[in-house]
């Protein structure tokens, strides 16, 4: 009460004729405040939990940290994680860059038309692709191994339960991610630069390395970091493929700590700080690169003319790379998935009795419709709300230079680099205690998802905002528009295309989420991936496959409709 009466008085004293509480300030404070709160709540509980003895009577302990940083187990897992993540990130970027170069800069036949399909792997849950690959490449009974045996007589050619197997599945998945970002960067480089190099007698390959590579390097660096973090936080692949090959990562260890009896969430939270450290080092490294990158003025995004390199006979090979990637990342696993979903159980010994529609028939009751509604609410509607939130937030962050803004910015990174399973526990702990009507609702899952993707959303919005020259906004301000009006009139419309592409990304992330939802859902707020997860846990693998097929189909359908209505996929590729 005192504050309320005191504030306007103080304002009058300080700024005559200028109201202290402007709509902008209120919005800024509300946005920063709510962001900080939503991040701080689960993080605080996690931090607190990491200092409390698991299962005990709330006794303070440093034991969790001692076990994580002092013991051999977690340190070896840490190195495993670094090795796996770095390998996948490097290979995914190499493959993604190759794909992007072929699509953007060569005359390889047919690749332009196929380009939109190249983002499909991003839309497939890697737990599901993992299981599909087990069906295909399990050492003894995998369909491909059986096929190879029948053709050549050699057994066990492929073994998906291996480090190589993990890398294979993950690279196929994340190369698409690298493809999208590198494509954007390649398209923003003026071809004049490359031509100038050709004229100086430098051959295309050398030009690519000496000219193009440095120009896209900042993009490669940020993509590397993102893929690295994604892999480090992935628990499905190390769990399903890594455990059988004896390759445990930090995330599988964290998963086991949570699933242990008695559960050790505190230990898991302490182990999570290792991932935070990785992300912290990565972010600092990336900042340095970005600071150096400012001198590359050509990255203005104007895009100029683009020259295509005539590959001659090699162009068919280039096409083969693109279509080969599509085949292995989408067609083959998806076919395996559809086939397996029609089986009673997964096997390569085919009999008539094996085939069934039961897996789909079971989904035809009202349950699935209910799940579909929930998933739609969270991912489609929630995705729109979330993207709007990220944009307004990063806009306000870019206009505000206060310490509060800096704090919010750093806070936004934290949940993105916290494993979702831990973040979810933080949310659970926080919201079960708070007297808010959110616990167990779809609303809480939505909030958790928004917080989870804060870093990604803000980062993407930031780079999209950079594309809108500040002059455009300034011109509106001079023309009499306040910051909010300028945002509405100028920034938002100019951002339509990048907004669309971020929505696509966020929609897929939200739609596929298991890690957060499985901890936070209730019978009323179950989503499709959670249902899939429980089916999988209940041993109904082919039943889960049927759900996965529907899940994929729904994602494709939504993106197809969105593409038709708003051009979302094209927007993602043409940024």
């Amino acid at each position, binding site marked *: 009460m005192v504050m309320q009466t005191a504030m306007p008085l103080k304002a009058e004293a300080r700024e005559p004729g200028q109201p202290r509480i402007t709509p902008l300030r209120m919005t800024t404070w509300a946005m920063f405040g709510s962001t900080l709160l939503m991040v701080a709540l689960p993080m605080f509980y996690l931090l607190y939990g990491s200092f409390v003895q698991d299962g005990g009577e709330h006794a303070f302990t440093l034991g969790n940290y001692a076990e994580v940083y002092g013991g051999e187990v977690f340190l070896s897992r840490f190195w495993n994680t670094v090795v796996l993540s770095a390998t996948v990130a490097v290979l995914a970027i190499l493959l993604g860059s190759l794909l992007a170069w072929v699509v953007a800069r060569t005359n390889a036949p047919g690749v332009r038309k196929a380009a939109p399909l190249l983002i499909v792997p991003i839309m497939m849950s890697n737990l599901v692709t993992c299981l599909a690959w*087990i069906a295909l490449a399990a050492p003894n*009974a995998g369909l491909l191994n059986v096929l190879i045996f029948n053709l050549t007589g050699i057994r066990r050619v492929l073994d998906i339960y291996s480090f190589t197997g993990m890398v294979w599945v993950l690279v196929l998945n994340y190369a698409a991610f690298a493809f999208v970002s590198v494509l954007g960067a390649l398209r923003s480089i003026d071809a004049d630069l490359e031509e100038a190099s050709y004229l100086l007698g430098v051959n295309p390959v050398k030009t690519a390395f000496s000219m193009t590579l440095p120009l896209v390097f900042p993009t490669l660096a940020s993509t590397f970091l993102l893929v690295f973090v994604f892999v480090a936080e992935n628990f499905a692949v190390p769990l399903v493929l890594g455990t059988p090959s004896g390759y*445990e990562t930090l995330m599988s260890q964290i998963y086991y700590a949570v*699933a242990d009896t008695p*559960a050790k969430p505190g230990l898991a939270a302490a182990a999570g700080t290792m991932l935070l450290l990785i992300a912290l080092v990565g972010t600092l490294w990336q900042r340095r690169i970005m600071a150096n990158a400012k001198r590359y003025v050509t990255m203005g995004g104007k895009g100029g003319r683009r020259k295509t390199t005539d590959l001659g006979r090699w162009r068919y090979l280039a096409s083969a790379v693109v279509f080969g990637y599509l085949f292995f990342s989408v067609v083959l696993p998806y076919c395996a998935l559809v086939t397996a979903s029609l089986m009673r159980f997964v096997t390569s010994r085919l009999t008539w009795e094996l085939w069934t529609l039961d897996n789909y028939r079971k989904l035809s009751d009202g349950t699935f419709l209910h799940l579909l509604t929930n998933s739609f609410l969270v991912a489609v509607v929630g995705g729109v709300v979330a993207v709007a939130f990220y944009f307004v937030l990063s806009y306000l962050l870019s206009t505000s230079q206060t310490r509060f803004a800096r704090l919010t910015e750093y806070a936004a990174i934290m949940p993105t680099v916290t494993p979702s399973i831990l973040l979810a526990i933080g949310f659970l702990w926080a919201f*079960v*205690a708070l007297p808010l009507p959110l616990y167990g609702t779809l609303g809480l899952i939505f909030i958790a998802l928004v917080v989870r993707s804060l870093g990604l959303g803000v980062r993407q919005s930031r780079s999209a905002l950079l594309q809108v020259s500040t002059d455009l906004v300034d011109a509106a301000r001079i023309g009499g528009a306040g910051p909010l009006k300028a945002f509405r009139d100028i920034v938002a419309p100019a951002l339509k295309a990048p907004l669309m592409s971020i929505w696509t990304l966020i929609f897929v992330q939200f739609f596929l989420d298991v890690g957060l939802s499985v901890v936070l859902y209730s019978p009323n707020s179950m989503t499709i991936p959670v249902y899939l997860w429980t089916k*999988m846990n209940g*041993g109904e693998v082919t039943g889960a496959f049927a759900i996965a097929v529907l899940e994929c189909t729904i994602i494709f359908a939504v993106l197809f409709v969105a593409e038709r209505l708003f051009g979302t996929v094209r927007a993602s590729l043409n940024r």
Partner: protein
Amino acid sequence: MKARLTLTCAVLALAVPAWAQDVAPEHADAWAFMQEAMPGVPYDLLAAACKEGTVMIYNGTWGDAQKNQIAAFSKRFPCVNVTNFELPTSERRERFVIESKAGRHTADIVQDTDPGVLDAQSDEGLILEYKISSDAQFADSLKKSGYWYPVRIALAANAWNLDNVTDEEIELLSTWQGMTDPRFKGRVGIAMSPSGGGGVTLYPYYALYKTYGEDFMKAFAALEPRNFSGANTLAGALASGDIDVALAVSETGIIPLQGQGAPIEWSLPEPGMGLATGQGISANAPHPNAARLYQEYAFSDEGYAAFNLYGGAPAKTGFADTRPVAKEEWYEYPKTFSDVDPRLMITEKTEFLALNNAWFGLK
């Protein structure tokens, strides 16, 4: 307080002849069933349960069994609307404990695959003290009398893919001693977490170690089994023929695939080794009477059968297994059970894990 009150009611009810009860006409059928299936449970419980009108079960990922039981219950007691919340074990456990401690009471009935966890929760006051009328039909090692009772027993099995093993090998697999035969080397799968995980996966190893000693475990490890992250992925690999044999794996993980027609059979060697999956009532159940009524029904012959049909092996004395698999010629239920106390495993867990990880080369 409430619990004790109801208990007193139950005791009082025993003294009062049934015919003396004023029964509301809409409850007549239910009451008639109760007198037969759960003798001694007072009419007041039915009336109070109906008044509460709803009950929430936190069950595991055995939805078919649970739903079948709920359907049967709803037929008997249409006045109580049952909702169930299907959650994987660790999430379910975490939810129940956190909600209880935060005072956000949602669950009426909870299940857990680990008796140790349920025991601990009972001691911590999270499980309501309620002795079911069929208490005597459950062995002491499979329950904590007055707190939780076993809905099934997850028995350790040696399973094989029919297409990949010989009769001789099947013979070997029907005893614990036979499974370490060197001819299985490189053909075996197990499911074990280096950090222990839930008791269900670890107990068979513990019991085998306690029963047969270290040399046995070393011979087991010498088979170089491929370790899977869970019973389900292991079962999948077995069904597809990627591995020939799965050793000391919980029967509950393989039954669904066998039911789907996968060429899997298994033995449950003597002595049977396994953990009960228990069910108790939350100490802070929002619908304590409906929860008691459901608990009574779940362990009555009819309720138990409804669950058992799609669930795991029964743990009720004198109960005839209703599962299709029980009628299979090859299926043999163990006559004896291991006397290795699962409660002891919890206290020795750290030391045992260190040994176990060393034998199996788990890091």
